[in-house]
C-alpha cells in the first residue's frame, strides 16, 4: 500500500510540477485570478456598499448566497455529529454514572481561564461588530466566542459549562442564527427587492437616516451577527459531543 501510494503521489507531484511552469509568477498583479471580477469588487465596493473591508462586502453581500449556505453547512455538521454520536437511552436504559467530582481541579488553570474567558468574549464581540472596517467578521468572532466556552470546559469540566449553556439552548440558538440570516434576506423580498438585496432595508431604516448604500452595510452587520451566533453554538456543541462521545457526561 505504501509503495502504491508513493507512486501515485510522485506521479501527481511530477504532473503538477510541469503544470507549475505555466502558472503566473508569485505576486504578479496581472495573473488571471486578479483580472476579472475582483477588480470590480475593489473599485465599486465602497461606493456600492459603504463597507471598506472588501472581504466582508464580498462575503456577505456580493456572494451572500454562498455564505448563507455556508452557515447552513455548519448547522448541518453540528446536527450530524449529534445524531451520529447520541445513543438512544430509551433502548439501553444506560445509567450515566457521573464521574467522581474532581477535587484536584488545578487552581492556576481555573483562575486563569476564568480571567481569560470574558476578555475573549469581549474581543469576539468587537471582531463581529467591527468586521466591516477591520479584519474580522461573523465566522471569526463566532469561533472565538465558541473557543471561550471550550476553554472553560477544558479547565473546569464539561458539566460545569453545560450547566450554564444547555445543549438544547445551544441547538435552538444555532438554528436561530441561520434564521436571522435567512430572515434578513427574506425581509428584502417583503420590501420589494431581491433576496439578500439589503439596499431595500432603507425603506424601513430610512427614519434613522439610512440610505440604500449604508443599508447594505447594516444588512451585512445583521447577517454577520446571525453567522456568529450559529458558529459559536455549533463549535461548542461539536466539542461537547466529540469530547464526551455523545454522552454529555464528563468530557476530557
Amino acid at each position, binding site marked *: 500500500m505504501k509503495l502504491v501510494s*508513493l507512486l*501515485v*503521489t510522485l506521479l501527481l507531484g511530477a504532473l*503538477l510540477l510541469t503544470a507549475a511552469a505555466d502558472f503566473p509568477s508569485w505576486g504578479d498583479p496581472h495573473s488571471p485570478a486578479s483580472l476579472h471580477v475582483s477588480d470590480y*469588487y*475593489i473599485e465599486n465596493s465602497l461606493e456600492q456598499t459603504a463597507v471598506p473591508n*472588501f472581504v466582508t462586502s464580498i462575503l456577505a453581500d456580493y456572494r451572500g448566497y454562498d455564505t448563507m449556505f455556508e452557515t447552513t453547512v455548519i448547522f448541518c455538521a453540528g446536527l450530524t455529529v449529534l445524531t451520529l454520536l447520541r445513543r438512544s437511552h430509551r433502548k439501553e436504559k444506560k445509567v450515566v454514572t457521573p464521574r467522581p467530582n474532581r477535587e484536584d481541579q488545578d487552581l492556576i488553570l481555573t483562575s486563569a481561564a476564568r480571567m481569560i474567558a470574558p476578555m475573549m468574549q469581549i474581543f469576539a464581540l468587537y471582531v463581529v461588530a467591527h468586521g466591516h472596517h477591520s479584519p474580522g467578521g461573523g465566522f471569526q468572532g463566532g469561533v472565538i466566542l465558541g473557543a471561550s466556552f471550550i476553554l472553560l470546559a477544558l479547565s473546569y469540566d464539561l458539566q460545569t459549562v453545560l450547566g450554564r449553556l444547555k445543549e438544547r439552548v445551544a441547538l435552538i440558538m444555532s438554528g436561530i442564527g441561520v434564521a436571522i440570516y435567512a430572515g434578513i434576506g427574506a425581509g428584502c423580498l417583503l420590501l420589494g427587492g431581491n433576496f439578500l438585496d439589503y439596499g431595500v432595508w432603507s425603506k424601513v431604516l430610512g427614519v434613522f437616516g439610512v440610505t440604500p448604500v449604508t443599508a447594505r452595510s447594516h444588512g451585512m452587520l445583521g447577517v454577520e451577527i446571525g453567522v456568529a451566533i450559529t458558529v459559536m453554538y455549533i463549535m461548542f456543541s461539536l466539542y461537547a459531543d*466529540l469530547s464526551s462521545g455523545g454522552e454529555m457526561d464528563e468530557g476530557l
Partner: protein
Amino acid sequence: MRELFGTVIGEYNYWAFLILLLIGLHAMISKNNLVKKVIGMSIFQSAIILYYVSTGYKKGSTIPIMAHGHGTEPIHETAGQMVAGFVNPLPHVLMLTAIVVGVSTLGVALALIQKIYRVYGTIEEDEILEKITE
C-alpha cells in the same frame, strides 16, 4: 534547462503548496489509522488554502481594506492604481468559506471515527476489514 530552473525557483509558492499537498495525499492513501487519514485530509486542505491565498497576492499591495485600518495608504489617482494597490480579495473570501467547511468535515469525520470505534473496537483499517469479512 536553465530557463526551467529559473521559473521553478521563481515560483516557490507553488513548491510549498505542492509539497504540503503531496504529504497530505500520501497520508490519506497509505496510513492505516483512520485518525491519521483525517490528519492527512487536513494537511491537504491547508495546502489548497495556501495555494489560493498565494494566487491573490500582488507585489507591493496591501490588505484588502480601504480608507482606514492602515495609515500608510498611498493615494490612488486612477482606478487601475487602486486595483493594483490591494490584494485580490476574492481568494480570501473563497478560502474563508473553505476553512469553515474544513472544520465541519473534520467534526463529522471525527464523529464517524468515534462511531466506528464503538462498533468495531478499533480504528485500524485492516482490522476493521477483517471484522467485516468475518
